[in-house]
């Protein structure tokens, strides 16, 4: 297996502006993609993800530098030669009426068929394999126009696979899907990259999913790309730096985002298990910061009759048998005694020591 199928050499992506210097959106960047890896391109809206992807796919000329596909310049390769090595799935919706899924996927064989476009037996075999790879073989005779968003994206991926590429570039194809479908498509891509030994570059907004699925992350931040395995980027603070926005911050301990508005003071959650974990989550949502030995506490206890929640400290002392009752009790208390909570002195103190583990909260 050859490493480095795609190489970005001092690449600057952007737009040519008439009678002005070109607008540089991304770069200069020196990066490589390896065969068999799924890379996710992350970055806020307007950071230039689509511009970069179009440039990598040869659809847009670079401002500077070059994109090399197994050594050949993507922007000078003949369209047919490029199509045999690189395929794309874009955000734009395909609305071809009367096109069946099979015909759609078979269009992926275009760069291999003669001028009549006739499919030979081995072309049919590739199309069928592509359909099976994404689990769309049962859709083969359906019309593309009748598919759901998720099914259509799967078929577009199958079409891209049918080109037998060494690089696949996919632009936010999971954006319109619900969470289970997003997870499914992303996992499928990771598997396909490994099985077909091709490099897949996927731009996405789904940071947490990318963090758990991608082999490599490309984090686009202020025109530069910080690349590396997800865990490394979390540990060295790249993630926090790139995505800390107003009111939201990345929690390195949990690998997830959380709200930074915690104006109600600190709370300690005691207990183990799933109930305690989601109690922590609920406390954060209500605006409390998790800390050890805080002046409020919730103890989650597993008793013979089920789970019980014991409030303590400034929450007052009371016991409840459901989390819902706990939350409404805390809200009621805040309404009558709101001023005390909002002026909590613990807030700034806790902020200055971010390395403190979040209370007794079990992670994961």
């Amino acid at each position, binding site marked *: 297996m050859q490493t480095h199928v795609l190489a970005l050499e001092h690449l600057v992506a952007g737009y040519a502006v008439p009678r002005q210097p070109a607008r540089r959106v991304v770069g200069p960047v020196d990066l490589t993609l390896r065969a068999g890896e799924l890379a996710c391109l992350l970055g806020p809206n307007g950071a230039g993800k689509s511009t970069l992807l179009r440039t990598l796919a040869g659809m847009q000329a670079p401002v500077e530098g070059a994109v090399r596909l197994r050594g050949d310049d993507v922007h000078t390769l003949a369209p047919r030669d490029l199509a045999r090595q690189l395929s794309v799935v874009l955000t734009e919706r395909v609305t071809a*009426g009367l096109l069946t899924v099979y015909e759609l996927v078979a269009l992926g064989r275009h760069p291999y068929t003669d001028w009549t*476009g006739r499919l030979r037996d081995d072309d049919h075999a590739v199309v069928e394999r592509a359909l099976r790879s994404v689990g769309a073989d049962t859709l083969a005779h359906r019309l593309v126009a009748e598919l759901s968003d998720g099914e259509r994206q799967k078929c577009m991926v199958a079409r891209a696979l049918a080109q037998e590429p060494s690089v696949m570039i996919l632009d936010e194809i999971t954006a319109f899907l619900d969470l289970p479908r997003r997870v499914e498509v992303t996992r499928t891509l990771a598997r396909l990259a490994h099985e077909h030994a091709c490099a897949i570059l996927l731009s996405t907004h789904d940071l947490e999913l990318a963090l758990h699925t991608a082999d490599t992350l490309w984090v686009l931040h202020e025109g530069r790309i910080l690349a590396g395995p997800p865990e490394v980027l979390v540990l060295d603070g790249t993630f926090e730096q790139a995505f800390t926005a107003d009111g939201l911050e990345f929690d390195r301990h949990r690998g997830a985002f959380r709200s930074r508005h915690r104006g109600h003071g600190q709370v300690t959650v005691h207990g183990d298990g799933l109930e305690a974990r989601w109690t922590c989550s609920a406390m954060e949502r209500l605006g409390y910061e998790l800390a050890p030995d805080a002046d409020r506490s919730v103890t989650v206890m597993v008793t013979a009759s089920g789970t019980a929640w014991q409030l303590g400290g400034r929450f007052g002392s009371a016991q409840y048998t459901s989390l819902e009752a706990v939350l409404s009790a805390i809200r009621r208390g805040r309404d009558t005694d709101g001023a005390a909570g909002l002026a909590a002195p613990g807030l700034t103190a806790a902020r200055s020591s971010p390395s403190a583990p979040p209370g007794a909260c079990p992670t994961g």
Partner: protein
Amino acid sequence: MTTPALAGAPHPRRFLSWFATAGLALVAAFVLELALGPVRIPVSSVVGLLVGSTTSPDTWHDIVLAFRLPRALNALVSGAALGASGLLLQTLFRNPLADPFVLGIMHGARLGVAVLVVVTGVAGGALTSRLGEAGVLATSMAAGAGALAVLLLMLGLARRVSTVTLLISGLLIGYVCMGLISVLLHFVDEVQARAFEQWEGGSFDGVTRLQLLWLTPMTVAGLAMLMALSKALNGLLLGEHYAGSLGVHVGRTKALAFGALALLVGPVTAFSGPVPFLGLVAAHVARGGLATADHRLLLPASALAGAVLGLAADVVVHLPWNRHFLHLDAVIGIIGAPVALWVLLRPSSRHLRSTL
């Protein structure tokens, strides 16, 4: 390798029966076109005259071969040209309601001819008879140039406006062309202007042998070009970006398609005037019958459907009515407009309406 289980080629039998039916309809319409009219001539005599028999009266000989045959051939060839153009435009614009008439392209072609008429100072039929072959060729080319100008304008617009707005724009551009034609005709004398107005509406009548001799090869060339492009046109079904990523030379394909369109629409409009909706209806008849998006089948099918429709509409126009009241525009409009409405209102076109 065994036959693939999911195999794509879905209904060869359906395709075969569609083409056989359409072929029979074409032959029937062609014979009816020659047989029906103010003078009814038996089908047997028509066939006899066509194969060179001399047993029929001389008047029948003249009516069928000198008068009705050129008109029938014109309806057949022009219908085929417009049918294929309709399909091509629907693919290029990714708009199921595109058609050379609806997008104003035929009006552009007429404007091209009007400009030529004013510049050379000789109108319509006069130009042809006075200048012979050069005149026929010049009017075809002027019409083709006018068609191309409007096509490029509409393609520029298509990037900016939605599907349905584009159709309204086509209508408006058609009106602008008609207005300009009126203005231009003020600069030529009345006799020439009247000659031009004779094909104000579309009609397959009055085509000369010379015009047919040019129309036919140009249409055949246009259709052949499109057949050669059918693989690339299939790629364009997914839009230009995807087509490019599949290895289609998008720019080259579009340039060739424009050339083919000028060959198909220019001469037809120059000789028969603006024939409405024929391309639109033919493309949908082909699609509806074959239930495929594959241009390798749809292009010949649209041309065939267009030829049948052109002939059938012309048969209706020339039925032996007591009073000659039906024009080609009226006959095709009565079929074409409802088909266009159906395309717009059917449930699967929801996305067309929502982009208003």
